[in-house]
């Protein structure tokens, strides 16, 4: 049975929210993004969010909905190209955007979830991605020292959840979801399907990392 994990309704979800919180949101151009949990964020009155997500989504999908509603103060992402609203808000100074190489972003979140103090990557050397960061040499090769990323909350989209809280993901909707589930104080999951018991060989996210499972998924999504 689901032990530490609990079923999540909107009321319980809202109790965990606070202004200025840092939220990781799974998905890649909204493929694998938990839209219902984002809508619950929208329907709450929290503000000044820092969103950590691969991208800015689209104006009407993914974290783009939160950006369009003016609820996001800071965005940490690898690109914002398909969301012109994010670009406009960045230009007029109402959205603080930190662009991070995609592999570095994934690795920063991994470091946060895996208890590492940072890592050395060659990605971004001699580019704007190196600005403000320390450069270290190892065996004569230069690297950028990158810091770990953690968050108060992670919103995860899974394909299946079993009755113990184990997760798997659908195709390329996996992307940032598994790593984000390791790096937040509170991990909330929107799963398409509930099953009894997952094959222990193919669990991607172990149940011990999951705090809440969305109780009812709208539209059977």
């Amino acid at each position, binding site marked *: 049975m689901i032990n530490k994990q609990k079923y999540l309704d909107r009321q319980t979800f809202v109790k965990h929210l606070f202004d200025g919180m840092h939220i990781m949101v799974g998905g*890649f*151009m*909204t*493929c*694998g993004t938990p839209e219902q949990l984002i809508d619950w964020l929208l329907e709450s009155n929290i503000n000044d969010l820092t969103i950590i997500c*691969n*991208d800015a989504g689209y104006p009407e999908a993914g974290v783009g909905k939160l950006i369009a509603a003016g609820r996001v103060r800071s965005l940490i*992402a*690898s*690109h*914002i*190209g*398909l969301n012109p609203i994010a*670009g406009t808000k*960045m230009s007029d100074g109402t959205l603080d*955007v930190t*662009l991070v*190489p*995609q*592999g*570095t972003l*994934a*690795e920063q*979140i*991994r470091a946060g979830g895996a208890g590492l103090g940072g890592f050395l*990557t*060659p*990605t*971004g*050397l*001699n*580019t*704007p*991605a190196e600005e403000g960061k320390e450069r270290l040499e190892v065996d004569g090769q230069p690297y950028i020292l990158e810091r770990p990323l953690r968050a108060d909350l992670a919103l995860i989209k899974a*394909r299946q959840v079993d009755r113990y809280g184990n997760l798997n*993901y*659908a*195709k*390329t*909707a*996996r*992307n*940032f*979801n*598994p*790593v984000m589930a390791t790096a937040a104080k509170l991990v909330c999951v929107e799963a398409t399907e509930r099953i009894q018991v997952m094959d222990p060989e193919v669990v*991607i996210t172990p149940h011990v990392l999951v705090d809440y499972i969305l109780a009812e998924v709208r539209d059977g999504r």
Partner: protein
Amino acid sequence: MDAKTIIAKRVAKELHDGDLVNLGIGLPTLVANHIDADITVHLQSENGLIGLGPSPELEHVDLNLTNAGGQPVTLIEGGMYFDSVTSFGIIRGGHVDVTVLGALEVDAEGSLASWIVPGKRVPGMGGAMDLVVGAQKVIVAMTHTNKGQPKIKTQCTLPLTAYRQVNLIVTELAVIAVREDGLHLLEIHPDTTLEKVLALTEAPLHVKTYTKMEG
């Protein structure tokens, strides 16, 4: 043949049997259409798969199966899915044999700029910085000029995607190798002349023996 097709066909000739290849968004995607039928190339999409197949028919679109541009794709037999951490472990770890990407500028040192035009366009670097640093061979596939303005420069003027990582530049006019001592002209397209290529290239080119570019 239009410029894009010329470039895509020529880039396809750089791929070898068994190569793991990442094709960037836009023009590089077209390379997949021209790969020699005798070889097997494994296409990676950095959002989380190896074994990229052709675009699906509309009725077979799966919203959970997209490429790095967010477009619906398919997976061929033998392919597999993985998460972003694994994907960039494969990329940065040197397991990608060839990455093909577009650029706004490339310079004589093999640096490239592709992700930002300050004050105008800030799409972000996505996975490009990791791909260019991690792949064994970096091919820039782009039109030779931007409305007549040279894109192959002595030094990039836009913010860099990576410093000194490009190995080969393929345009509709020429194929140019980046070496320690600068850019070497390898091939020019039959429809152009050496004079024209030199006039449209800002960076100095080493010109010794060059051949006709095969399409």
